[in-house]
C-alpha cells in the first residue's frame, strides 16, 4: 500500500457549483462547505465530501450540543474514562472497573421496530466492548404513544421482541429499564439502550491508534450497503408518513455474529494483543478510523479493496461509510498479527488487515493502491463547527394536556385500582419476562424485585461486591420545567440506587429532544443539561458519557423533552441489598423523608 503523489489522484468531480449543490444535498451548509475547502486548501472530491457530511452531521459531530455538554461535571476520584472514550468507566474497587453508556436508536426503531431495537442493543454492546470490558447487563428505556393506538402496540411489540432477540442471543442479561406511554411519542417512539460492562482495571484498552507501521484490522461481519447515507438520513430527518423512502437503510442485526465478536475481542484483550480497539458505528469505517487516528495524533491509511464485502462492486465511498453491524476495528503490532488472526479464526470471526497506522495525521483512503481520499483526521473529528443554541422560553405549553386517568373523586378503592391498571403504572412483567435477566450468574436483584438491578462484579471468585443500575426520565416533568424535571430524574435514579443500598458512582445520559434549531427546543435542552449537571454536582458524581438524539419530531409535533439518565452505583455486599415489597405480615411500615 504505497501512496502515489497526491496531485492528480484526488480530483473533485464536476464544476465547483455542482460540488456545492452536492454538499447541500448531503446536509452540509454553505458555510461548512466553504470551511472544508479552506481547511483542505482545495475542493474535496465526492468521497471526501461523503465522509465530511457524515462526520460533521449532528449525529457524529454534536454540532448543536457539544458546547452544552461541557457543563457536565467530570471530577471524581472514581472516574477512569469520561466522555471521549467509547463508554465511560468508573472504578468499582477490587481491581475492577465498570464501563457504561446509554444510546438511542429512536429513528431506526420508528421505521422498523424489531430490527431497529435489535441493532440498537448491538451498537451499545460494542461501545462497552471497545473498552475491553465484558458486557454484563442491558437496560432499555422506552417511550411510545398510548397503548390504545394500533401503531403504538405494533411498535411496542416489535421493539420488545427486537431487544429480546438480540440481548438474549448474545448472552447478556437485560435487567432493567422503563416504559412510558404518551401521545407525544405516537409517531416518534424512543428506544434508548444502556449497557454495563466489567473489566479488570489493567485490561482496559483505549481507542487511540498508536505506533506508525502497526496494522489496522477489521473484525467481524462482511461489509454491505447498509445505511449508506443512513447516519445523516436516519438520524436527523423529521419522520413522517412517507417512511417508505428510507426503506433501503434498514439494517439487520446478527446477534450470533456479535456473540462471536464479543468472545473473540475479549480473548484478544486478555492476551494483550491489541494496541487499540474501536467499534464501528455511525459512518462506519470513516468515523472509526478517523477517531482512532485523531485520538492518537497519528494517521491511518485504509485500502478499501481489502475490506471483505457482502455485495460485489461497492464504490470506495460506500465501503468507507457503510454502517454494517457487528464489526470492530483494532490496531495490532505487525509481529502480533498472526497470533491475532489465529485467535479470530478459532472464534470463527473474520479478521482482515485493511490498513496501517502512519505518521501523516491524515485519514487516507486507497482503492487498489490509488489514493482516492485524504483528510486530516483531526479536521474530521475535532474541528466540526459547533453552534450556539438560541433558546427561548415558549409563551405557553407546547403540548396538549395529558389525558386524565381518574374520574371525579370516586371511592378510593376504585381510584387505586384505576391507577394500578393504568398503562404507565401497571406491571411490566409481560415485557421483562421476554428478556433473559439471569444469564451470567450475576443477577442478585432482578426486574420486578427492586428499583434497581444488582449484579455481582466477579461471580467467578465468589466475592459479593456488586454494582447497581437503574434508568429514569419523566418527559412530562421536563416539559413542565426542563431544569427541575431533569434534576428530579437524577435524584430519582439516585433514590432507586439508595433503595438497594448502593452508593452512586457515575451517570450516563441520553438527550432525546426535538429540533434544536427551534428556540423552544433549544431552551428545553439548555435547561435540562443545566439541571442534570447541577444535580450530579450536588450528588458528587461525574457524567461519564452519553448520547444526544435531536430532531425527534413528526408532523404532529415534537416529543416531550426526554433526557434519560442511567446511573451506576456500588454495593459492597450484595447479600445486604434489600428488595422492594413487604416481606412479612406484622412488620412496621415507615415513611422516610421530609
Amino acid at each position, binding site marked *: 500500500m504505497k501512496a502515489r503523489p497526491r496531485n492528480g489522484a484526488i480530483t473533485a468531480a464536476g464544476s465547483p457549483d455542482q460540488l456545492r449543490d452536492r454538499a447541500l444535498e448531503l446536509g452540509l451548509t454553505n458555510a461548512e462547505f466553504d470551511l472544508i475547502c479552506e481547511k483542505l486548501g482545495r475542493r474535496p472530491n465526492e468521497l471526501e465530501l461523503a465522509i465530511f457530511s457524515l462526520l460533521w452531521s449532528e449525529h457524529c459531530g454534536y454540532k448543536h450540543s457539544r458546547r452544552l455538554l461541557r457543563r457536565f461535571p467530570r471530577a471524581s476520584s472514581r472516574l477512569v474514562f469520561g466522555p471521549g472514550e467509547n463508554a465511560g468507566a468508573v472504578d468499582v474497587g477490587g481491581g475492577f472497573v465498570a464501563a457504561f453508556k446509554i444510546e438511542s436508536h429512536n429513528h431506526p426503531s420508528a421505521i422498523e421496530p424489531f430490527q431497529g431495537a435489535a441493532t440498537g442493543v448491538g451498537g451499545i454492546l460494542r461501545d462497552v466492548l471497545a473498552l475491553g470490558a465484558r458486557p454484563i447487563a442491558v437496560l432499555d428505556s422506552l417511550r411510545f404513544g398510548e397503548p390504545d393506538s394500533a401503531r403504538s402496540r405494533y411498535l411496542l411489540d416489535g421493539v420488545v*421482541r427486537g431487544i*429480546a432477540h438480540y440481548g*438474549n*442471543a*448474545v*448472552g447478556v442479561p437485560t435487567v432493567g429499564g422503563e416504559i412510558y406511554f404518551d401521545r407525544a411519542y405516537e409517531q416518534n417512539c424512543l428506544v434508548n439502550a444502556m449497557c454495563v460492562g466489567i473489566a479488570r482495571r489493567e485490561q482496559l484498552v483505549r481507542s487511540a491508534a498508536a505506533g506508525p507501521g502497526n496494522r489496522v484490522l477489521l473484525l467481524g461481519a462482511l461489509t454491505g450497503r447498509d445505511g449508506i447515507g443512513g447516519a445523516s438520513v436516519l438520524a436527523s430527518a423529521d419522520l413522517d408518513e412517507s417512511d417508505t423512502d428510507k426503506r433501503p437503510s434498514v439494517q439487520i442485526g*446478527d*446477534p*450470533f455474529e456479535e*456473540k*462471536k465478536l464479543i468472545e473473540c475481542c475479549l480473548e484478544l484483550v486478555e492476551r494483550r494483543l491489541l494496541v487499540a480497539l474501536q467499534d464501528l458505528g455511525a459512518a462506519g469505517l470513516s468515523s472509526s478510523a478517523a477517531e482512532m487516528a485523531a485520538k492518537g495524533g497519528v494517521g491511518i491509511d485504509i485500502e478499501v479493496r481489502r475490506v471483505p464485502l457482502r455485495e460485489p462492486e461497492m464504490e470506495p465511498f460506500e465501503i468507507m461509510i457503510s454502517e454494517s453491524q457487528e464489526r470492530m476495528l483494532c490496531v495490532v503490532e505487525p509481529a502480533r498479527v498472526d497470533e491475532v488472526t489465529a485467535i479470530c479464526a*478459532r*472464534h*470463527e470471526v473474520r479478521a482482515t488487515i485493511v490498513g496501517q497506522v502512519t505518521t501523516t495525521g491524515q485519514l487516507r483512503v486507497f482503492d487498489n493502491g490509488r489514493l482516492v481520499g485524504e483528510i486530516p483526521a483531526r479536521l474530521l473529528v475535532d474541528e466540526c463547527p459547533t453552534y450556539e443554541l438560541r433558546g427561548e422560553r415558549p409563551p405557553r405549553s407546547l403540548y396538549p394536556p395529558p389525558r386524565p386517568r381518574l374520574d371525579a373523586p370516586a371511592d378510593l378503592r376504585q381510584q387505586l385500582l384505576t391507577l394500578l391498571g393504568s398503562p404507565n403504572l401497571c406491571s411490566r412483567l409481560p415485557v*421483562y*419476562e*421476554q*428478556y*433473559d*435477566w*439471569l*444469564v*451470567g*450468574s*450475576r*443477577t*442478585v436483584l*432482578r426486574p420486578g424485585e427492586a428499583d434497581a438491578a444488582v449484579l455481582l462484579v466477579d*461471580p*467467578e471468585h465468589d466475592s*459479593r461486591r456488586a454494582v447497581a443500575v437503574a434508568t429514569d426520565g419523566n418527559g412530562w416533568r421536563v416539559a413542565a420545567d426542563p431544569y427541575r424535571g431533569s434534576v428530579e430524574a437524577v435524584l430519582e435514579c439516585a433514590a432507586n440506587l439508595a433503595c438497594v443500598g448502593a452508593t452512586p458512582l457515575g451517570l450516563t445520559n441520553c438527550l432525546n429532544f426535538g429540533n434544536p434549531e427551534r428556540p423552544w427546543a433549544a431552551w428545553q435542552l439548555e435547561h435540562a443539561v443545566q439541571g442534570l449537571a447541577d444535580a450530579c454536582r450536588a450528588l458528587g458524581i461525574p457524567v461519564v458519557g452519553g448520547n444526544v438524539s435531536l430532531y425527534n419530531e413528526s408532523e404532529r409535533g415534537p416529543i416531550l423533552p426526554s433526557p434519560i439518565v442511567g446511573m451506576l452505583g456500588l454495593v459492597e455486599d*450484595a*447479600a445486604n441489598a434489600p428488595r422492594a415489597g413487604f416481606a412479612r405480615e406484622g412488620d412496621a411500615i415507615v415513611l422516610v423523608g421530609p
Partner: protein
Amino acid sequence: MRFAVVRFPGSCDDRDALLACSRFGDARLVEHYERDLGGADCVVIPGGFSYGDYLRAGALAGLSPVMAAVRAHADRGGPVLGICNGFQVLCEAGLLPGALLPNAGLRFVCREVEIEVASTRSAFTACLGQGERLRIPVKHQSGRYWAPSQVLDELERSERVVFRYAPGHNPNGSERDIAGIANERGNVVGLMPHPEHAVDPLLGSADGARLFQCVARLAVAA
C-alpha cells in the same frame, strides 16, 4: 468428578455451567471442534443460542465434531446433561427422542418455575426424592417438548420422564408437562429448566445444585 462443559459458537450459559460444575468437582470447557473430552466423567451441554439457533434450535450444533465424542461417552454409559439449548442439541443429535418446538405463546419466556422429580431412574435424579419439588428458572424460545404419543407413552412407562412442570407451571405448552427426559439407560438427561442457574441462594435458588451433587456422588460410589 471431572466435568466437561461443551461450548459451541453462540453458547451463552457455558461460563455459568462451568461455574456451577466447579462447585462439585473439576470443570473445564471443551470446544465444539474438539474430538476428545479429555477424560471427563460427566458432560454438560449448556444453554444459549448455538449457531444463533438459526434454522432450528440445536440443529447445527448437533452435527458438530464434538458431538461424536459425546455420543461415544454416552454409549459407554457416561453421564450427559443437556440444559435448555443443550437439550435441544441432544434431541437434534438423536441422543434423546422427541423435539423442542417453539413455545405455544410464541415468545421467549424467562421466569422461575417449579418442577417435580418424576423419575429417580437417571444419573442426575437417583439421589432425589420421587415427587420432590425444585424451584428453578426457565428461559427459552423453543421449549415445548413434543414426541409422537406412542413415544410419550413409552417414555412414561419406562420412567424416562425425569422432570415435569408442577401444575400451573408449564411455561411453553410441553406435552404432558414434560420438563426433562432421559435415555433408556438413564445416563443421558435433557431438561429445559436451568439447574446451573440455581446453585446459589444469593442468585435466587440453590435447588439446581441437587442434580450436580447427585451425579458427583454417583461417581464417587462407582
